């Protein structure tokens, strides 16, 4: 499949169209709004569903096959914040808290971007290793911890700080991690046969549910567009260059650690995407002085749509080219 066809396939999928519809609705000041409960319900559903699916695959995967990618994942989770932080400090001139917050977000992962990449590969008929959802779970936490540690070292005053162990517990028991890890465990324990009877709920309607979720993401994203404008050029530059760099490294590292082109595309998406659930919650709790107008605008209003529209097909194309997928 050539590059143009990939782009077309992506842009004209109901998912991306729903995202665009959400953006348009906000821009024309429509009163369209999804109930909060629907948003939560859909995110619980999506997290549990990818966990379940990943768990079934994980059970069928020899440890040897997953060890390499897992190691690279953990490494990336530590390295991305270690590079993001100084960039934000020096090039952006940001405060300690703002820089550490950005580091936490870009080191961690956007579940929806990952899921959109999976759906993209499914549409394109490109196979991938099912266990990669496990890597997603692995990548959620380390970057957050590294970034918070950086902030802790750099900050002298810690007025009324919550004890470190409490913060650690809060990060680890955050709902997105509990649902993905829980889903993985459920899938691994139940196995393909066990999960089969819940597939009409957790598997078949998945992409449709994701489409509805992306409608909401479009609404939410567009509400931040005002802040993109006022945020200055550094944010825009970082939000678009960082995913390309991380994604390109991700493709290479993924292929090198033995993944198929499809798997490497997903792996690249993990690295390239920026969290706005787990990392945001952790940052709100542990670095409340960091400005959401920066980290959330970057990850949600710049990098997220960038990956959806440009990033994912780019990583897929790269992985095909380097991984010899042919096409």
């Amino acid at each position: 499949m050539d590059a143009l066809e990939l782009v077309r396939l992506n842009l004209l999928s109901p998912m991306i169209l729903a995202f665009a519809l959400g953006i348009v609705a906000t821009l024309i000041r429509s009163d369209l709004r999804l109930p909060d409960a629907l948003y939560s319900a859909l995110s619980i559903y999506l997290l549990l569903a990818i966990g379940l699916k990943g768990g079934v695959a994980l059970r069928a995967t020899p440890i040897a096959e997953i060890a390499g990618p897992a190691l690279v994942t953990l490494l990336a989770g530590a390295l991305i914040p270690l590079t993001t932080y100084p960039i934000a400090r020096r090039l952006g001139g940001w405060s300690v808290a703002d820089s550490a917050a950005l580091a936490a977000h870009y080191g961690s992962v956007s579940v929806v971007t990952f899921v959109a990449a999976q759906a993209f590969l499914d549409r394109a008929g490109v196979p991938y290793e099912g266990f990669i959802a496990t890597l997603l779970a692995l990548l959620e936490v380390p970057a957050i911890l590294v970034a918070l540690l950086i902030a802790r070292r750099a900050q002298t005053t810690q007025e009324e700080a919550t004890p470190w162990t409490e913060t650690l517990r809060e990060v680890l028991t955050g709902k997105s991690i509990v649902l993905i890890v829980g889903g993985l465990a459920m899938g691994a324990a139940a196995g393909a046969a066990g999960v089969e009877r819940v597939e009409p709920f957790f598997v078949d309607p998945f992409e449709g549910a994701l489409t509805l979720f992306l409608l909401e993401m479009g609404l939410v994203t567009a509400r931040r567009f005002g802040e993109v404008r006022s945020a200055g050029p550094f944010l825009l530059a970082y939000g678009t260059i960082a995913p390309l760099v991380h994604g390109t490294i991700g493709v290479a590292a993924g292929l090198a650690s033995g993944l198929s082109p499809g798997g490497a595309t997903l792996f690249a998406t993990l690295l390239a995407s920026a969290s706005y659930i787990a990392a945001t919650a952790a940052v709100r709790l542990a670095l409340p002085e960091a400005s959401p107008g920066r980290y959330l605008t970057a990850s949600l209003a710049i990098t997220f749509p960038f990956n959806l529209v440009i990033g994912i097909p780019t990583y897929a194309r790269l992985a095909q080219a380097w991984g010899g997928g042919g096409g």
Partner: protein
Amino acid sequence: MSDESASWTERRVVTVIAEAVLYERLLHDLRAWGVGGLTVVPAEGDPFGSRVGDVEGGFLRIECVVGTQVADRVLRGLSERYLSRFKVVAYDHAVRVVRGAKYP
């Protein structure tokens, strides 16, 4: 019973509006400050504000009927531990309750 029920007492209602992410911490602290019960209503983010709630579960509106001393302690505690760091709004006012003994 009808005797006791006829008597009003003055108590205070403390209202706290906070990001949902602070819920567990707030519960813990409110209890420590002497709050005996509370009512929680999920609230939407502030459309004028930073909209952090948009992606992480919105805001909570917590309301507790308490005595004057507990109210002072709660407002002081919130002021010291939350107001300067977090997006928290807190206020209280006097109300008239029946069976005030339930809210020391």
